[in-house]
């Protein structure tokens, strides 16, 4: 037996009030930690996909839509632009490298992207099995796609028009799977990649079929650009937006704008969570304070056994700290389950792996906060115990 064990026994002796305190704190800590984790997960994911892309050029429209569709592949494209105009921009001396993208078709909901082979370098794609595409209608398949749809090298994929499964299918032409990609933790995992020629070809065939006007000029959907010098990020996009009928968008601007948009909601929720933590502190204080009255004879008795004032104060502080640290740990577990749950819901747009679940620096702050709350809540009860007049308590009964 020692003071620490005694504290634990005392906590279990009044399980309900201990439970309420722990649950409140766990809820507050859990919400904050969940928000922190999701924020860091999404930010990581978004920034991971942004690496190497300074600017995106596409058709006029919403810049955010352009970024979401061409970088993250989660929105519809703003439209198409002419190949010549894109080529002009990519030949500009400020441009370091550029990748032309064509998209607009899907296979069972996963996008088919016609791209230059440089896309592989951008996302550090590694071929796991098979080879790169060399002729039209050959495709490489991202890891999420083949895992989910159980696609193997050599399979034929009949794609459909548009970005949803319900689109009209290109039944006359099919793509041949020539390679599977390693998971790269980027957006490439959920894409099916092919050469630009395949996409041009399938659509001109498609147009013929419907007897629409023939397209002389080739078109692309968007172009990803990396500058020679980061300085150009200020001047060049404005030039394009003002002087051409193309749109240039800077992903890092748009994403930080997006974060600001839903940042307000996160902030409100965070304040709410802090409020819950403060309430849990009060609950802890009231819990300890009440138990002081219930247990005053008991504590006077422990003093008559020869225990010092310090030992009794320590018992109270231990009780408080055990409860807050338990609340913190349960809150953290709760947030981890929350992250797993949310990421399973968002499987398609967020890559989730266990490495990203680590303890964030902010969570060490939460631990500090929990300990602080434990100390503050137990301060007054501990001082009361310290100043307790045992003779009077024993004589009063």
């Amino acid at each position, binding site marked *: 037996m020692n003071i620490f064990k*005694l504290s634990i*026994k005392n906590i279990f002796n009044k399980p309900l009030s201990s439970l309420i305190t722990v649950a409140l704190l766990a809820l507050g800590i859990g919400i904050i930690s969940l928000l922190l984790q999701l924020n860091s997960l999404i930010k990581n994911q978004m920034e991971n996909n942004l690496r190497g892309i300074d600017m995106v050029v596409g058709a006029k429209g919403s810049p955010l839509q352009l970024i979401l569709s061409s970088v993250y592949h989660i929105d519809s494209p703003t439209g198409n632009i002419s190949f010549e105009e894109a080529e002009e921009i990519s030949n500009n001396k400020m441009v370091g490298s550029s990748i032309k993208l064509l998209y607009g078709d899907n296979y069972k909901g996963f996008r088919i992207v016609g791209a230059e082979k440089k896309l592989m370098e951008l996302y550090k794609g590694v071929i796991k099995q098979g080879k790169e595409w060399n002729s039209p209608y050959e495709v490489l398949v991202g890891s999420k796609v083949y895992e989910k749809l159980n696609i193997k090298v050599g399979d034929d994929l009949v794609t459909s028009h548009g970005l949803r499964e319900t689109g009209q299918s290109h039944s006359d032409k099919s793509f041949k799977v020539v390679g599977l990609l390693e998971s790269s933790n980027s957006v490439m995992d959920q894409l099916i990649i092919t050469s630009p020629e395949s996409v041009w070809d399938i659509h001109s065939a498609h147009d013929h079929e419907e007897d629409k006007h023939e397209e002389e000029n080739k078109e692309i959907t968007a172009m990803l650009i990396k500058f020679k010098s980061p300085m150009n990020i200020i001047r060049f996009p404005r030039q394009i937006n003002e002087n051409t009928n193309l749109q240039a968008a800077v992903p890092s601007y748009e994403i930080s704008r997006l974060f600001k948009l839903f940042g307000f909601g996160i902030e409100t929720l965070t304040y709410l969570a802090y409020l819950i933590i403060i309430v849990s502190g009060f609950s802890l204080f009231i819990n300890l304070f009440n138990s002081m009255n219930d247990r005053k004879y*008991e504590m006077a008795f422990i003093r*008559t*056994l*020869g225990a*010092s004032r310090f030992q009794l104060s320590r018992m109270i502080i231990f009780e408080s700290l055990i409860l807050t640290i338990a609340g913190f740990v349960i809150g953290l577990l709760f947030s981890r389950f929350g992250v797993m749950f949310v990421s399973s819901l968002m499987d398609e747009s967020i890559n989730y792996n266990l490495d990203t679940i680590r303890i964030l620096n902010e969570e060490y702050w939460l631990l500090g906060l929990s300990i602080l709350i434990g100390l503050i809540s137990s301060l007054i009860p501990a001082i009361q115990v310290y100043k307790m007049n045992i*003779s009077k308590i024993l004589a009063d009964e």
Partner: protein
Amino acid sequence: MIKTKEIKFNYDNQVFFKFHDINLESGENLLIIGNSGIGKTTLLHLLSGLLKSNSGSIELFGKELTKLSSFQLDIFRRDNIGIVFQKPHFVNSLTVKENLELAQYIANKKDNKRIENILKNLNIFDKLNKKTNQLSQGEKQRVSIALAIVNSPKLILADEPTSSLDDENCSNVIKLLKKQATDFGAQLIVITHDSRLKKHFKKSIEL
């Protein structure tokens, strides 16, 4: 040796107590008898160092209690004194055994054998792992005695141990206390208003 001289005590300058001197050789037990309101509990608290007297001297086993700090009094009480209360006190979240272990822990001791011996001697060994609120009144009193003697005190102070008991139980409890004191080599001072106890003590004083 227990020796007090002209102890005086007052609560907030309102209630004044003046106590008879006590002179007890080692091995002697003492009955202190007096009506309620006469300061019996105050005297017990003074002797156990829970209260400090305003004047006079209290010498226990060669130590002058009035000269000790409250921290030193805690240690002195821990090492030398066991108290049996009128109404037994325990730590309710602990079992009988854990209560006794806690008492030993406070005195920096650990001796399960002794806990077993004491409980066997008091005939409550089967209650070892019971929570204290599962015990009958009589069992509670025995556990309370066990707690008072578990750290081998030189002095056992008992505050009204028999006040609510019938004649038969009164006689049993006092015999038990005396036996425990003798068995474990402690002196016994009982403070009470219960005149039935007079016949059990050779030495008694009236307040």
